C-alpha cells in the first residue's frame, strides 16, 4: 500500500500519478488473506463483486475531480463526503443486481 502511495507521490504529471490512487493494493492484501483462509472459489466470488465496486470508484473519482476543478471545493471535504456516494451506489448495486 505504501509502495503504491510512494509511486503516486514521485510520478509526474499528476494525472498519471493519479492512476496509482486506484491501485489494487487493498485487493491484493485482502484476496491473499481470503485465499489462505477460505480458498480460491470464495476469493473469486469476492472479485466478481469487486468489479461493481471498481465501476462505482470510477463515478466517485470522476465526481471528486469535477467538484475540485469546476466546483472549486477543497480536496478533504469532497473526497470524504463522496465516500457516502460510493457506499450508497455500491450497496444499491449489491441489493439490486448481485444479491
Amino acid at each position, binding site marked *: 500500500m505504501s509502495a503504491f502511495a510512494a509511486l503516486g507521490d514521485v510520478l509526474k504529471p499528476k494525472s498519471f500519478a493519479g*492512476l496509482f490512487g486506484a491501485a489494487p493494493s*487493498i485487493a491484493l492484501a485482502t484476496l491473499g488473506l481470503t485465499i489462505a483462509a477460505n480458498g480460491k472459489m470464495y476469493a473469486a466470488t469476492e472479485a466478481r*463483486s469487486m468489479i461493481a465496486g471498481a465501476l462505482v*470508484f470510477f463515478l466517485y473519482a470522476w465526481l471528486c*475531480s469535477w467538484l475540485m*476543478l469546476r466546483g472549486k471545493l477543497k480536496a478533504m471535504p469532497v473526497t470524504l463526503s463522496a465516500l457516502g456516494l460510493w457506499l450508497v451506489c455500491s450497496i444499491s448495486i449489491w441489493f439490486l443486481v448481485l444479491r
Partner: protein
Amino acid sequence: MKVSADFSALKKTKWYEYAVRFLLGGSVTVVAGLLAKHYGPVFGGLFLAFPAIFPASATLVDKHERQKKQRAGILPTTRGRQVAGVEAAGAALGSLGLAIFAWIIWKLLPLWNVAMVFIVAVSAWLCASCALWWLRKKHWNHSLK
C-alpha cells in the same frame, strides 16, 4: 508532457503521511474481511475497491501544493485543489483498470496458480490504466495535463 519521477518528493512527504495511508488501507482490509464473514463474499467483495487511500492522497496533494505556493508568497491559491482534481481524474482512469483486474481474478483464479493470476491481473491493471491515460491525454490533452 512526458511521464517522469521526482524522487525529491519522497523527502517532502512526512513518515506519518505514509503511515496514515497504510493504516487506512489496513483498516479497510480488516473491514472487508469482517463484512465478507458476516454478509458473505458477494457483499464483502464490493469493499475490495473501496477508495480508502485516495482521500488521504488527494488531501496531501492539495496541502503540499498550497504550501508550495504559500512559500512562494502566493496567497490565496487555488493550485492545491486543481492538482488534486487532476489527480482524481487519473484515479478515475485507474479505477477502470481496477475493474479489469477484478474481472481477471474472477475468471482465472479458479483455474490457474494464485501467484500467476496475481501477476497477470496486476500487469493488466497497469497496462490498461496506462493505455487509458495515454488515450485520454492524446485526445483531450487540454483538460488533463
